[in-house]
């Protein structure tokens, strides 16, 4: 099973001190108020995803943000996933619908 997370905030089970410190060291942030983890630094993002996967015991994927429509979407439906070096990592992208939709593209261009 694959677990889909949103990089802006996600929950993890209670962690041992060592694992928590390791996650903070890798670039995660934790909010005591919301009890959610979020990504602060993307320098070690691959290690973050591996560590979170091993904590949750399942494959973890992050949602992507579409720069045109602003929606969060998974990499699963992307035609270029095989060639992407950052697949399933939480970075901005263009969703498949927006990429093919010329009308949407021209509307997007008028914003500039």
């Amino acid at each position: 099973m694959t677990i889909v997370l949103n990089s802006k905030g996600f929950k993890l089970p209670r962690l041992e001190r060592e694992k928590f410190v390791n996650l903070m060291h890798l670039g995660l942030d934790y909010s005591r108020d919301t009890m959610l983890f979020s990504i602060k630094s993307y320098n070690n993002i691959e290690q973050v995803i591996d560590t979170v996967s091993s904590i949750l015991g399942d494959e973890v994927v992050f949602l992507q943000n579409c720069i045109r429509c602003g929606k969060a979407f998974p990499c699963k439906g992307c035609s270029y996933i095989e060639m992407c070096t950052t697949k399933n990592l939480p970075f901005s992208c263009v969703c498949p619908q927006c990429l093919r939709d010329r009308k949407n593209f021209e509307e997007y261009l008028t914003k500039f």
Partner: protein
Amino acid sequence: MQTQSKMQLLWVEKYRPRKIEDVTGNDEAKALFIEWLKNKRHTKKAVLLYGPPGVGKTTLVMAAAREFGFGVVEMNASDTRSEKAINAVAKPATSYTSLDSFAEGAKSLGNVLFLDEVDGIAGNEDRGGVNAIIKIVEQSLVPVIMAANDPDIDKLRPLKKVCLLVRFQQVRIPLIIALLQKICLLEHVKAEFEALERIAQNSRGDVRSAINDLQSLSEENNSLTLQDTMMLSSRNKDVSMDETLRRYFSAQSIVETSSLLLFSSVDYDDLLLSVADNLPKRYTDATELAKAFDYVSRADLFRGRIGTENWHLLKYFNNALAEASAVNPESYKPFTLITPPIRIMTLFWTKPKRSLLQAICAKIGAKCHVSVERAREAYVPYIRLMLIKKPRNPLAAYFEFTPEEVDYLTKMGRY
């Protein structure tokens, strides 16, 4: 004349982003860099932007400087960057305010020092360059920005300690397609979507080369078909050790791993050690693990036969290694990779202890007229036992052991 020169302008320059928000991709890296630049009380005085070429590092620096009103004092790979040259150019820029800021109506916030391609500082010409940069960073009154493609080279290690590191990734294919669509619209080029798709895929995340390809293929007749893109040569890009291992263990077939190994530029010995370290994490089933280790040992055999000249055997090495990755593709679950190889790390961590033992054996060898090797094998175990039984043994004085060496001998674990 002006129109003609505009037409002849490279599209890379013509569409070089003037605003931060126009820089394609790497939004997270952009945000981190801008936050650092805006913050006047930097925890780190310098920032090192690193990542593959053509992903917007230099463009972002120029766009940010323009937007925030900084003057840019730049040194790039084409300049000599020895200690002397850096001190002559960069030091004044980081210590004094530019004259522009005194001009009437000036909005300049001062200068930023931008050292592009710092990983290219090398050889006799650039002697002392890295140390000079570190000194400048420590004393600088203005933000110091650096850019590099490969930050992992040894000589940049001291530099990384004083810098905030901002990693840039390859720009994603959909983002490159979107940018190419935008340029086509502005240049009135009628392009097939599939053609843009192929250019973007071929660029492997390098925006600069994608724009250059688009211009070279479509400028003449203002149209672009998939057929036109067939002449594009594929760009071979290096794949790092981390990425190689990640993709190696998640590969679904031998063919996928083989093509990955072809692209990767990692050291074959390091790769072999790292694969062996990580296999027990990859295969939890003992039979699968044994089979995978069998393939790795075969790869090791070929590596030995390749040596330094028989590179025609490399395909057999790659094949054996590829087979180890695809023993059971369905059983793959992500795990934390062990890298660098345990053997290399162990050698690194035990170096002080090994040096101490070497010094002890040299002292024994000198007194007993034996080689260091013989002293280690035949003398050290007995001297150790004697010292454990009687710590103030006159032997210690005879061999001129220091207290640290006596301590090491009595506490050492195994022989």
